[in-house]
């Protein structure tokens, strides 16, 4: 716990950049090896801690992983289930069999679901049942570990709150090391935030002002994701904007009561 908090310095890399990999484990999604050399395949920050090397992406959409808890918007009803926008390259399918019978869904609803299955040809299959997803596939141990990490996050329909999108590549920055940034924001706003691993966030509040502050913070995190000392700046900003209690300079477009569906990309 103490060691990983000091990774080697992060280096900005672009595809084709040679990486000074010394770690035994490498992330094959972002690093490729040829002739005993390691190269980055994406634009991002190369980091190496203990025995793991990877590149934190700075560009690109959400790439689904089995076990991820995502926030989605129902966009269509198809033969076997609901088509759900999860901010990925393709919409996901939420089969009716994976919806608990008590929840009644309709188009436009915002849901919290788990990625039950992901295949390149099948696409993403979601699950909203707390227990077992019907994918025909054994639950892996990975998913178990994930479960504990996302404890307390209930799957199901979101009944209130605002949906805000963050670029998925910037999500790790929003959470911060060990969840430091997100918990600071939650504490600052005194509201719960559902963080979908796909970059959709739900701020559980009815207050427009809190939504505006939250959105502003998200945009700042997106813009300054690759800088250091961001958490401190965000905490400072949060306390400042909350203390200056004046609705007047709520710059930009003031949010109308569009509910949770009014997300901006």
């Amino acid at each position, binding site marked *: 716990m103490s060691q990983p908090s000091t990774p080697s310095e992060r280096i*900005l890399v*672009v*595809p*084709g*950049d*040679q990486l000074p990999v010394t770690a035994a484990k490498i992330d094959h*999604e*972002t690093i*490729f090896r*040829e002739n005993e050399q390691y*190269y980055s*395949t*994406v*634009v991002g920050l190369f980091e190496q801690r203990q025995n793991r090397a990877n590149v934190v*992406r*700075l*560009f*690109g*959409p959400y790439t689904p992983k089995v076990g991820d808890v995502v926030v989605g918007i129902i966009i269509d009803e198809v033969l076997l289930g609901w088509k759900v926008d999860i901010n990925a*390259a*393709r919409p996901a399918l939420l089969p009716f069999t994976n919806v608990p019978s008590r929840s009644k869904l309709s188009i436009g609803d915002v849901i919290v679901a788990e990625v039950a299955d992901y295949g*390149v*040809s099948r*696409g993403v299959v979601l699950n909203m049942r707390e227990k077992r997803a019907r994918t025909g596939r054994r639950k892996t141990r990975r998913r178990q570990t994930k479960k504990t990490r996302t404890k307390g996050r209930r799957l199901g329909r979101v009944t209130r709150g605002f949906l805000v999108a963050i670029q998925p*590549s910037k999500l790790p920055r929003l959470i911060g090391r060990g969840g430091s940034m997100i918990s600071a924001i939650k504490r600052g706003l005194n509201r719960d935030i559902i963080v979908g691993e796909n970059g959709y966030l739900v701020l559980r509040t009815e207050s427009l002002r809190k939504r505006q502050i939250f959105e*502003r913070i998200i*945009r*700042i995190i*997106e*813009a*300054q*994701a*690759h*800088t250091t000392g961001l958490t401190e*700046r965000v905490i400072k*900003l949060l306390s*400042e*904007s909350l203390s*200056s209690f004046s609705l007047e*300079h709520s*710059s930009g477009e003031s949010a109308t009561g569009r509910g949770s569906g009014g997300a901006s*990309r």
Partner: protein
Amino acid sequence: MNTVAAKVQQGGGAEGQAAEEWRRPDGRAADELRPLRLEVGVLENAEGSAYGEQGRGKILVAVYGPTEVHPRHMEHVDRLTMLCRYHMAPFSTEERRRPQPTRRDIELSKVIREALEAAVLTERFPRSMLKIFIEVLEAAGGTRCLGITLASLALANAGIPMRDLVVGCAAGKYKGRIVLDLSEEEDKEGEADMAVAIMPSLNRIVLLQMDGELTREEFFQALDLAIEGCRRIHKMQVEAIKRKLQEGLALTPPTEEKE
């Protein structure tokens, strides 16, 4: 106007005395690139995009995907299907050009696609499709090279994993001399034009086309010059990506003005 600007730039630089004697129609030295500007992430609606200007030429590139393969027969079970469309806008040339893709457009689409396919890790996305649109807004020679350079930036912007960036640059022969990055005029009047695209870090040639006549020695001379040009453009590509990432930094936290 461009000519004047180029000349002024020349005068200011501490160029060698040998380079002083011969100038190209636009005032460049034989191994000089046209002024080049590259920009990443210029379109909201596309997953990745890039815009560039090279001399008078202007190109916009957008990347969509990976998505489901739409004409199903194009699907590959083991790799990504890449669709590339190189197209010149009707207003891109001196006289209005018919908007339908010509034989040339189709050929260039194919060679550009193949050049990019060499870099993209296509086996990571079976049964998926990636669409690349290269729209030439103004043509001024060397559009296929700039198109490739921009397309690889747009792919990087879309987060598509690639072995390397791809850079294109042309070289050729004009009035008996081997020159770099031919303009439209030089291309038309010159003896040969050679388009080259490389993966600069992996040191691989992914596109090599030639039109005209060169001797064996001239060919290698031109090839070396084009690769040298590619390497210079590659540096600008990396800078363009970094500039895009820095963009956010310019936005100071809004509270600072508010207080």
